[in-house]
Every structure is written in structure tokens, then in C-alpha cells.
């Protein structure tokens, strides 16, 4: 009996104490509790303008997220050394999504409540998709560094993207096929989201242009022997072979095609546009052609190419800072960062809705991925012009236009 009464007393007391705590808290004026102000329009001049970045720093996507973090941190220092934005220091809060959609959702909710003006990233399409709703509902501009076409199609008014899409790269390939008068192609894809997206785009464009796909094969991300698939392809007598994948698979495709004597032009995707491909494929790489961003051939661009300055700046600073050539992924973060900064500057204040409007107004923006022209209907902003046609000659990239 006695112990029951004690328990009831204790329970009542604890509940009261807890309620008291809550009521006490809610009576406090927000200034006492709020550590970082909400998107609040009224901020002291010295308070930093805050941007969030959600990148894949751990997990399978970290090879793309890590250089993105590097470049963002380098650029923040650069901007602050030149006086910041809107006369205030710039701050970027970097969060890791652990290469998972759930991680990205947690990070986005946190960043939004920390009052960020815009969010850069995530690095992958699966992480970006659930953020489409979240950023749209919260009214926070998102500038994605992932290439899935579903990110900007259909358009959500607060969601933008910077990478060149597979759609544009595939169009560039078909341009080449038409110029060469090739009407029968075989294709081979890596079994991952990138290859999958390429497969869909190639199938759609081939149907539209009346080009026949005579064979379709796939390979696993870690496969090292492609002779089985290539033998089938050879039997189908294609006029060209299109391979859609990221290293190391496409290098094996290139080598094995040579070994079995598949003597047709080999087209690769922009997914192999880094030195690793040439290292892996060795001698066989010569003659391979691909659509690629201007980044890998920036030194060969004409001096009056408006792109050359941006690329020189990006490539040389990255090289100095990290001792290696920049990847296209680092370029995405570079573009997203500058688009955010320019939009904030043009909006004139760190207001989410105004920054969104300003991003949509961005025209002729020279980024590493291409020239961005955003509009209400186009939230990717790039055209086929983002790609140049590149051929590998003597183990080096050669601009073919």
C-alpha cells in the first residue's frame, strides 16, 4: 500500500516538473532560446550569411562527395578573403548524408532549421529525390549536384541542378552517328543508376532518330572481362558501339573489344572523362570518342572561348590546393556554390524566396559544366553545348571540333 502511494506521488511530481519545464521554456522570449536566427529578414550586419551543403562524405558515393567538400571549403575562404557577400561573412555548413536518402533527409531538416539561405547538393540522385518535397515545402532553394533527370523534370520551383544530364550527352553521341551516317548501333551499360539512365536515353533517342539498336548488353560495376557480351555484339554487326558507364568497366570494354577484333568506332560516355580511363585502357584507349565537358580539354580551347577563363581558374587552383586534376564532381560543387553566391548577391538580401527568384533569372553564367541559362521551365540550365566532342589520341584527350 505504502509503496503504491509513494509511486503515485513520485509520478505526479515528475509529470508536474516536466510540464513546468516546458511551460517555463515556452514563456521565454525566442531570443533567449534561438541560437541561430531563422531565415529572419532582420539580421545584424555582422551575422554571417549561411548556406548548407549536403554531400556524401562517407559510404559508396564518397569518391564524388569528398572533392566537393574540398572545393566548397576552399571557395568559402576565397569569398571571405574578398569581403564576403552582402557585406557579411559567408558561412557554409557541410553535412554528410552517408550516401543514404535517410541521411540526406535528416541533414536537410537540420539545415533548414538552422536558417540556411540555400542548400548545395546532395551528391547522388537517390539522396536528392526525397529532398525535392522537403525543400519545396519549406521554401528553401536546393542546387543539386546529382545528374538524374527526375530532379528537374518535372520542375519543382525551389529545386535546381547543375550537372550535365545524360540526355544532353546522348544527343551529342547521336549527332556524331548522324554525321558519320551510322544507322546501326550496339550498346553496353554498367548496371548502376548512371548506366540505367543512359540506357533509357539512348533507347528514346534511337527511336526518335530512326537508328536501329542491334544489341544491348550490360556489365557489373566490378566486372573485368567483357568478351562474352562483346562477342554477342560483334555477331550483331553494329556500325558503332556505345558504352555507358564509369570506371573501371568501360576500360575493360575498350580493351576486350580490341582483343576480339570488334573493329567499329567506340563511343564512351562523359562518365569516363578522367585520366583513370586512359591509364586503365592503355593502348586500346586510342581512337575512343566521347562527349565530355570542356574541363578535360580546357587548355586546347580557343583563347576567345568564354569558358576558358573559368576552367583555367578552377583547374589551376584545384591543382595547387590538392595536387591533382579536378574531377567533374568537384566542378558540380564549384558551379552550385557560385550560382548560390551570385543569386544571393543579386537578391540583395539573404531571403530564401528572393534567392530562388534570382537563381531562376541567372543567364549566361559561365560554370565548369557549361553555360547556365535557368528559366521557369528549365531548372538544369544547360544545353547540348555543355559538351564538346573529344577523341583520345596518343593517350591524351584531343578536342575533335
Amino acid at each position: 500500500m505504502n509503496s503504491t502511494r509513494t509511486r503515485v506521488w513520485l509520478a505526479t511530481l515528475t509529470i508536474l516538473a516536466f510540464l513546468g519545464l516546458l511551460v517555463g521554456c515556452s514563456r521565454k522570449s525566442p531570443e533567449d532560446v534561438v541560437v541561430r536566427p531563422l531565415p529572419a529578414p532582420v539580421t545584424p550586419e555582422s551575422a554571417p550569411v549561411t548556406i548548407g551543403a549536403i554531400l556524401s562524405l562517407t559510404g559508396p558515393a564518397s569518391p564524388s562527395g569528398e572533392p566537393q567538400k574540398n572545393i566548397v571549403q576552399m571557395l568559402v575562404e576565397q569569398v571571405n578573403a574578398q569581403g564576403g557577400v552582402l557585406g557579411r561573412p559567408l558561412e557554409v555548413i557541410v553535412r554528410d548524408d552517408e550516401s543514404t536518402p535517410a541521411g540526406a533527409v535528416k541533414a536537410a531538416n537540420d539545415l533548414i532549421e538552422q536558417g540556411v539561405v540555400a542548400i548545395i547538393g546532395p551528391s547522388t540522385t537517390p539522396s536528392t529525390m526525397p529532398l525535392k518535397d522537403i525543400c519545396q515545402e519549406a521554401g528553401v532553394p536546393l542546387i543539386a549536384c546529382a545528374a538524374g533527370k527526375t530532379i528537374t523534370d518535372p520542375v519543382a520551383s525551389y529545386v535546381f541542378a547543375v550537372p550535365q544530364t545524360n540526355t544532353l550527352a546522348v544527343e551529342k553521341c547521336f549527332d556524331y552517328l548522324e554525321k558519320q551516317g551510322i544507322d546501326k548501333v550496339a550498346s553496353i551499360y554498367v548496371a548502376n543508376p548512371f548506366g540505367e539512365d543512359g540506357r533509357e536515353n539512348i533507347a528514346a533517342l534511337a527511336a526518335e532518330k530512326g537508328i536501329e539498336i542491334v544489341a544491348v548488353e550490360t556489365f557489373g560495376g566490378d566486372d573485368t572481362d567483357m568478351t562474352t557480351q562483346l562477342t554477342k555484339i560483334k555477331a550483331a554487326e553494329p556500325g558503332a558501339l556505345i558504352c555507358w558507364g564509369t570506371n573501371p568497366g568501360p576500360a575493360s570494354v575498350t580493351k576486350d573489344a580490341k582483343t576480339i577484333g570488334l573493329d567499329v568506332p567506340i563511343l564512351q560516355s562523359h562518365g569516363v572523362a578522367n585520366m583513370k580511363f586512359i591509364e586503365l585502357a592503355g593502348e586500346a584507349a586510342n581512337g575512343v570518342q566521347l562527349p565530355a565537358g570542356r574541363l578535360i580539354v580546357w587548355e586546347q580551347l580557343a583563347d576567345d572561348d568564354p569558358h576558358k577563363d573559368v576552367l583555367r581558374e578552377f583547374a589551376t587552383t584545384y591543382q595547387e590546393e590538392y595536387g591533382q586534376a579536378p574531377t567533374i564532381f568537384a566542378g558540380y560543387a564549384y558551379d552550385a556554390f557560385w550560382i548560390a553566391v551570385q543569386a544571393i548577391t543579386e537578391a540583395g538580401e539573404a531571403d530564401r524566396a528572393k534567392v530562388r527568384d534570382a537563381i531562376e533569372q541567372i543567364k549566361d553564367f559561365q560554370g565548369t559544366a557549361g553555360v547556365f541559362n535557368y528559366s521557369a521551365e528549365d531548372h538544369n540550365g544547360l544545353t547540348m553545348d555543355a559538351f564538346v566532342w573529344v577523341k583520345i589520341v596518343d593517350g591524351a584527350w584531343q578536342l575533335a571540333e
Partner: protein
Amino acid sequence: MSAARQIADKGGARWSSLLRATAWLLLAAVVATPLLLGEGYRLPGGVGKNYLLTIGIFTGIHAIIAVGLGLLMGYAGQVSLGHAAFYGLGAYSSAILTTKLGLPPLLAMLAGIMLTALIALILGAPTLRLHGHYLAMFTLGLGMIVQIVFNQARGLTGGFGGVRNIPHLGIGSWQFDTKPEFYAVVMLTLGVTLLMAHNLVNSRSGRALRALHESELAAAICGVDVARSKLQVFVISAVLASVAGSLYAHFMRFVSPGPFGFVFSVDLLIMVVVGGAGSIWGPVAGAALFNILSETLGKIGEQVPWVADLDIVLFGVVLVAVVVFLPRGLVTLAARRPGRARGPAIQPEAQAEA
């Protein structure tokens, strides 16, 4: 228990009931905090309501699966390396049936439960008759097959692109489309799960399970249908994973194959082992620790970047420390109080009754 021992235990028992009451209140307070926090509040580090709710939702979803897996591991003595697959089957069932066929969310969830239960039955019936860890191997295989289906059955699953535009969870016109509502739904589901697990463990079949965990032979001699008992728990744990998957799908409103792979199966094992497989609350503690630790490191990482990469190392250290010092999981810390010795160890009565 003899009368003399009862008298001797009386002081300890009163303390333990006080402690238990306080623990319940504390738990209720922790669960209620994100709901009661005002929209404009910021805790230290800029942590706000929606962020806490999101962490709570994922913790709850993980805990639902972990409780089931804890029953399987701690009571039936079987390891599953494929619970992420059951989680995925629930998520994809909800995603596909609601978007492609327009089924109401609850019906789709039910279909997911039936599908998962069926697969668990087919897989478990032959495997659980065998001695040893055959189930681990079979579930490992299942996990890989399911992953391949998610990736390759493009017409159904959308391949790597996943399934988009999944509707909100709702009953009729009542939509759980805000975070507080969804959080409440997840916590309620977790509560029901815990209640069910509690009843199962303290029922005749629960005692039978504990007996067979200690010695299958002894249990069989006492009249326990060993294979049937194990199969029952396996199916229950698979169904719980499926329910959690459906909740995930409706919260994210987007599913892709990535989160349902082998890595997540291992994460679940870590949660269960760290928390303590032989109890009901252990896996919940494990899930909470897993999520809170990873978010805390992420928050510290905002200021000190290298800390964010430490979580894998830290989980390794915690896992080793728990296995070495607290082989029955973190819950043993709570159970060490006088008069609260709990755990899967068979008590004489349990054996006699079973």
C-alpha cells in the same frame, strides 16, 4: 520463492518499483519532447523541432525492425543477415501498390505484410528444421536476390531510379502529412510492437523459445516443437521489418534500392547486439544509440570536419566494448539494479512449465 527471501527482497523491490516509475516517466518525456517543442525553438547547435522529429522517426522505424530481430536472435538463437530485404519488401510493396494500383496505404501495407510473411514461411520452414546457422546463409542469399529484383525489375520497381510520388500515409481522408503526426504514428506502432513482443516473451511460446535458446535438445524433450517455435518468431520478425519498410516508404515518399542492401542488415545486427538481443528494450536502446550517435557526430562535424568520418570507427569500438564487457548488451546496465535481474536466462519455473 521462500517467505524469508521475499522479506529480504522487500526493500530492494520498493526501490526498483520507484526506479521503474521514474524510467517510464523519463521515457515518456523523451518521446514527447519533439512533439511539445515550439516551431521557433532552437536547442544548442541550432537543433529544432523538425530535425528532432526526423531523427525520432528514423529511430522508431529502426527500432521496430530491431525488436523483431532481437526476438529472433535473443530468444530463438538465430541470426538473420537479410532483414534489410524484408524491410525493402515492405517499402516497395507500399510504394508500388499505392502508386501503380492506387491502393489505400493501409491495404498496401497489409499486402506487404502478407508477402513478407509468405516469403519468410517458405524460407524458414525448411531451414529452421536444421541445426546450426543455416538461416543466416539463406537470409544472406535472400538479401542479394531481393536487391537484384529491386534493381532489375524495372517495369515494377523503376530500377535504380526508384519509385516516386508515394502518397502520404492516411486512413480515408485523415492524412498523416505533417511530421508530428507521422512521428506519433511511428511511436504508436513501436509501442504496439513492444507490447506484442512483451506478451510473446511472457507467454507459453516465449518460455518455450527461451528454453530452446539454451538447449534445443532439452526443450524438445520437454515437449517444445522447436522448428515451429523458431519459424513463428522468424515470421513475426520479418513482418515487423515489413511494417517498418512501409512506414519508411510513406515518410520518404520515394524508395530506391540503396537503403535495403546488406549494409543495412549489418547495421541492424549492430543495433541489436549493442542494445542487447535477449531483451525487448535492448534493441530499442541500440537503435536509439545508433541514430543519436551518428547525428551527434554529424553535428560536431559541422565545426570540426574530421569528426564526421569517425562514426564507423566509433561504432566498431562500441561494438567490441559491448561484446567484451556487456555480452548481453547495454540493457544489462539497467538490469543490474537490485531485484531487476532480467534476461533470457531460463528460470527454473519457465523450464518446468514449458
